[in-house]
């Protein structure tokens, strides 16, 4: 089509939810979804995903999730840049499926390969008694919608406890950002290696 003046820019994200480090828990599975602003629309790929149940092995004490992400967004406005919301679930001692952590991270802005370690947390019970009963009943406090962790509004009313980490690898490609006047990185085309590019390379 008219490639001369694009009216949207594209953001392609792929990668995978690599692993989850939850020292205390096992048999976890992970859900992810994207939260984005009104000017964004997914054009291809899956916006949501749910992983298999992963068990920790004896030597690597972390759950390898290896859940691929592949989604492409189009947008007219960087406002509301997509955020990936992760939520991890697993069975508790009684076998009830309870939430093990929520976390969110922005998709990196500039193209490149990124490995992000996302801290995960869960909302706390409002009282000790509730904590006990929720533990006993297997109904831990959960967010009404996992997407609230991607918004700042209203978080002041909650108390959370950190649980573990999830490592996500993003490969980000953008298209037409620069043409629309958004400069997000040193170069659009030149690849940068990792988060801290090496300063000098010996010949």
């Amino acid at each position: 089509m008219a490639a001369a003046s694009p009216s949207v820019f594209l953001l392609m994200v792929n990668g995978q939810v690599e692993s989850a480090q939850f020292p205390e828990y096992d048999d976890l599975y992970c859900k992810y979804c994207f939260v984005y602003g009104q000017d964004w629309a997914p054009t291809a790929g899956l916006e949501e995903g749910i992983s298999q149940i992963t068990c920790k092995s004896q030597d690597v004490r972390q759950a390898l999730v290896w859940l691929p992400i592949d989604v492409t967004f189009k947008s007219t406005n960087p406002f509301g840049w997509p955020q990936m919301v992760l939520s991890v679930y697993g069975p508790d001692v009684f076998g009830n499926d309870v939430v093990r952590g929520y976390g969110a991270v922005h998709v990196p802005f500039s193209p490149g390969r990124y490995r992000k370690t996302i801290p995960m947390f869960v909302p706390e019970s409002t009282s000790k008694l509730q904590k006990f009963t929720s533990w006993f009943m297997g109904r831990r406090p959960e967010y009404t919608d996992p997407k609230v962790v991607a918004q700042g509004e209203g978080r002041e009313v909650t108390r959370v406890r950190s649980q573990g980490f999830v490592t996500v690898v993003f490969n980000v490609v953008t298209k037409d950002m620069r043409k629309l006047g958004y400069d997000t990185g040193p170069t659009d085309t030149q690849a940068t290696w990792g988060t801290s590019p090496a300063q000098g390379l010996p010949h």
Partner: protein
Amino acid sequence: MNPKEEKVKIIAEEFTENEEDAAVGRRKKKVQRQQRKKQPPTAGPEEMVSETPHLGPQQEPGQEEPKTHLLSTTARRGPRSLPPIPSASRTGFAEFSMRERMREKLQAARSKAESALLQEIPTPRPRRLRSPSERESETEFGTEPGKEVRRTQQDDDSQNYSKVKFRDSGRKIKSKPQVPPGFPSPEEAYNFFTFNFDPEPEEERSEEEKAGAKTRGGADQEAGAPGQQVNTTADEEELLDGREAEDLLLGLEHMADDFVAIRPAEYESVHHWLQKEKEMLFVPSRLTVPTYKKLPENVQPRFLEDEGLYIGARPEVARTTGNIMENRLLVQEPERGWFGDDGRILALPSPIKPFPSRPPVLPRGQSTAAELETLYKKAVKYVHRSQHMIGSGDPSGNFQVDIDISGLIFTHHPCFSREHVLAAKLAQLYDQYLARHQRNKAKFLTDKLHALRNAVQTGLNPEKPQQSLETTQKTIKEYKAEIWQTRRLRDAEQEKDRTLLKTIIKVWKEMKSLREFQRFTNTPLKLVLRKEKVDQKADEEAFEAEIQAEISELLEEHREEYEQKMEEYRAAHQQWKAWKRAQRARKKKKKHATEEPPDEETEEAPPEEDPGKPVPPEPTDRAVLEQQVRERAAQSRRRPGEPTLVPELSLAGSVTPNDQCPRVEVLRREDVRRRSVYLKVLFNNKEVSRTVSRQLGADFRVHFGQIFNLQIFNWPESLTLQVYETVGHSSATLLAEVFLPIPETTVVTGRAPIEEVEFSSNQHVTLDHEGVGSGVPFSFEADGSNQLILMTSGKVSHSVAWAIGENGIPLIPPLSQQNIGFRSALKRADAISSIGTSGLADMKKLAKWATESKLDPNDPNNAPLMQLISVATSGESYVPDFFRLEQLQQEFNFVSDEELNRSKRFRLLQLRNQEVPEFRNYKQIPVYDREIMEKVFQDYEKRLRDRNVIETKDHIDTHRATVAKYLQQVRESVINRFLIAKHHFLLTDLVVEEEVPNISILGLSLFKLAEQKRPLRPRRKGRKKVTAQSLSDGDVKLLVNIIRAYDIPVRTPTPSKFQQPSRSSRTFVEKHAASPSTHSPTHSADYPLGQVLVRPFVEVSFQRTICHTTTAEGPNPSWNEELELPFRAPNGDYSTASLQSVKDDVFINIFDEVLYDVLEDDRERGRGIHTRIERHWLGCVKIPFSTIYFQSRIDGTFKIDIPPVLLGYSKERSMMIERGFDSVRSLSEGSYITLFITMEPQLVPGESVREKFDSQEDEKLLQATEKFQAECALKFPNRQCLTTVIDISGKTVFITRYLRPLNPPEELLTVYPSNPQATAELVARYVSLIPFLPDTVSFAGICDLWSTSDQFLDLLAGDEEEHAVLLCNYFLSLGKKAWLVMGSAIPEGPTAYVLTWEQNHYLIWNPCSGHFYGQFDTFCPLKSVGCLIGPDNVWFNIQQYDSPLRINFDVTKPKLWKSFFSRSLPYPGLSSVQPEELIYQCTDKAAAAELQDRIEKILKEKIMDWRPRHLTRWNRYCTSTLRHFLPLLERSQGEDVEDDHRAELLKQLGDYRFSGFPLHMAYSEVKPLIEAVYSTGVHNIDVPNVEFALAVYIHPYPKNVLSVWIYVASLIRSR
């Protein structure tokens, strides 16, 4: 004894005279008095001794020496006097045990006797006698002497305090050399013979020492001594002891032979304890510590600030605190590491800024508007991500630094043997020598000296006469000065050369001896000294000439100097003489006036300080001078004739092979071989590469020879090499870091010289072989003296340069560093906060600020600023005098406001952000303006425009229009509030959490476990609620289940004669009285049995969708059918807010299906049936959708709204058919229908706002309401309890404030002046005529807003609460007992009714319909009662039941009704929010008439519109008849006129079959009227010859309340 005492006193007196000078003003009378009282004039032996040091240091420095020689050794540790030494008395005391105490007692006894004597002689002498010791005990120790004494008792205890230790040592030293003098004093002798001595030889000895000391001391001074003893014991004790002593005295003889010690009971006095405590506890003094204590000995305090060094302001510490700290530090940590050179505690500069960063607020009044205007500056694209980043836009983005690392030499290494150390030293020295030799400065200076001397020679010869004498003199003088300078330099250089040479030789000799000693060689180093022969004679001559020249020059210099000095001397002498004279004069003057004011003395002080007589200088002696010169020459210069020594260092020597070396050396060599070294190259603190690992050579050199090309993006900030060493296979250890300088931009590859950078490491290595290690002391000497500590060190030879690109351009990044450094430095300084960024540009201002703020120029923090100020040139620039709050705001504006407004995109973004309804859900706002359609804004702009224009089209009458506009505005403001409140979250909004189960729930859940899986009688389970967002059109359905109806009006036979008795005008008394009105149909007999009375069916219309049931038969039909109607949300928006504002009603219409035989021809009757179905509207039930939405289901029996006149129908009862029901049913009027309405799926109703509204109520009251509500909710969670409500401005108001007697319109009162009941009904009717508008519709999602009655009347819209409040207020005004009933009713749900008390019964009024019900009326729509609200109290229903049928309304019974205001919380007399009285304007009748015409016209047009395929004819005659009839209806309120009317109509329209009915409504808008007419379905008749009649009547009530009557009829001409 007495004579001695006398003597002592006298001596003491002499002393006191002297002492008093110093002790002026320090005495304390009180103490003295005390002293005098207790004073025993005898001096105890120990006091005698103690006295000496007390007196010593302070006031008799001269006398001190001889007297206190026993202490002087310890007391004088340094040049400064140290704190006074503790007295020997303490030691004595410490060692005395029981025996000592006895003696004390004895003394006390004696002293008592003495004091008795003394008291007889009233002289001031004792006082004077006491004073010195007293004073000293205070001043010197700062503690009372008693304490000191006690302290020493525990000398043997180990004590940490150095002070005490010091004293101990002092005591020991003192006691040892002490030789007891041979003669004991009388007391001593006495003691000796009277006491039993314990077998303690040592103590005895010391005792004797004491005695000796005492006697010695006592000879010249015993003054004041006894004082201490007094202090040692308390008064009581003294008394006791005195008695004891007496006993002792009496029994002395026995004592001696009995060996029985009679001792007092063990008792330790409070003082004693205190003293012991003091012993244990250290209380630092608050007195200032003298500086000398804090500094090492013989060190003068240095004040760095005076020396020009920067010292920051010390943090503020209170002086006493500081003193205490210093005292403590001195005692606890005597290492004195705490104090700086100036004798103060080391402290960092105070981090607190002295000035606030925020500038003071400017005084008002200055018009700065012009300056405050912001200007748009286009945002500049920011190129660099960081300051040091080289622009990514730069095409040639790669720059290169080449680092050439050629090698590494260790100048010291842990594996160095001793020989290596020496070799390294030698090599170093040799290098130095070579360097010096190359420069050969001495030679150069000598040449220069010669040249200068020549110049002077020529200058002195007057060969150049053209030069003036003065100039010559001047030049010669300069030359001479230079000669002197040069000579000194040359001498120094020569001396250095010589010493260097000497050192080299010395080291070489050492090395040789070492090699011999250890019998092997480690290094190939070899020094060869080459002698260069010189011509001895010439040399000597030159030497001599040189010396002569020097001497002559020196002589000359000295002569000049001498003259100068002479002159100085003369002047000084003169001055001195003058001073001397003045001095003499002054002395004379002084003698005359001894009492000179002190200030004059100070004036004269300076001349006094004048130094003594000046000494005349001595002329210099040539011989002496020559001697000096020769000596110096001998020292620094080569002797004449001596051969020149040239050292040459070579590596020609051979290293002893391993097998000839001792084992330790072999080990060392092996260790060296195992070691390897590599370098890491760090660029900007990041490792970029490393060299290969190379083995360490035996000569400790490593050759790398590697070149690293660094391609860089960032400007190099640091280049570092890290030297790593690996031993064997262990991991590498970092030896040292070498910082390489970043090359100048001019240095490019190929041009860079190889440079050496030294490094050194501070690691400590000890090796178990020959290697000397690093950081460990070792020595070359056999005895281990002369130790050396060497650290690992070395040199890296390298070169750093910029690379050159292919085309010869050096790959150097653009130089932009200076600016950045400059700016960052500025940031650090505080200037920005002080004068703003704009001020920074103005150097003048900056400089001014710097001077004003007294910037310390020495502070390294300020260095860049000071530099900037000093460098900066003054440039005029504009500086505003105002302070800008957000001074950088402008920088963040990426476009100007105009552009922001002009751009459609930005506008769209802004509007969306503001959550403007039209744009709230706008998705994907286009990137470019051109892609945004103009029409996007059209709706919005239209709305904005319309806001100010009153739309008269819909409303017809202007008042309603303004009200509508006002309502709209209120709604908007409330919605804005709501939108804000929506952003306030509660925990439950975010987190789903199980509630803590209480016992009942637990029990239930336990019970559930035992429950059957498939119970026989299943229970209804709650449906799943659906959040509204995910819905779309067609998903939501309205389910209406029509079950049955009762008492449907039945057809009256068309040609019947009416003899029905007119219904007597029933009063409400009759209605409630539950007496069945016996209007039994007399004509029921007319109907033939089995004739169908009525064939009703139900039609439900909602949002213009119509469904109907099948037709049933009879007045009590049963349908039991479910109808399904689709629901469409406005604009497809299924959000909660949108659903709440749906104003549509569900109309449930009941029709009678009438079949007419239309067969024209009777002949065809046998062959076919031609019937026409007509349907006649009988009544309707109207349920607002909002009710269904909030109730989620509506279930119950509703009264059908049947028009007052239903032509052709009558409410008949067939006694025959339904006799059984009659008694029950006939209790009430009207027909009923049983319905069940719900939505599928169930929608989640919007929640009301929980925002806590602000209030003007008393805080206590609010708390009480909360408490009350909580208590009520605990007991009966389902009952509505209302104590506070929110008024229209959003404030919380206590509910009783709404109730207040208010006058109803006069007009209504005058209608039935004698009939209060009728008046009440009329008033209720008036209230019901005010249109009903639920709050949820007007204020979507907001809780109930209560408007006051005047607001309600102004708005002419409100929901149940407003109606109820108004009605209640009217009733109160009418003198009734009235309450507001909060409860739930059908179909409204939670609502408000009005309860009145009539003589002996209660009436329940529905304020919205104007109907009233008796308490026991089964068809009363009010189903439960939560609370009652009166004008001064609130009562909550705490009865078991809440149905009005079953409860007692007597609020005075506290068991049944819980009242809010009670005895504990009396009614505070809340003022009402209602106005004093309501003012009613008479409605404009003409306007009403006009409105009536317009409505009629509109309705007629509508009916014609609804019948597009048929001709609509209007029967004018009928219309006029109806029009006349309607006012009658209004007057009678729709009752009792039916029969007359029917008769009249029959008379007039006899040949028409007539079906029609009047509709009565409150007027709010036209639209509901149209809807109502439409729902009756009058227009649906499609009989060809049908005619219509439509009449509208509007009856105006005061305050623009309009009652609308619409009479619709269809007429079919019957043949």
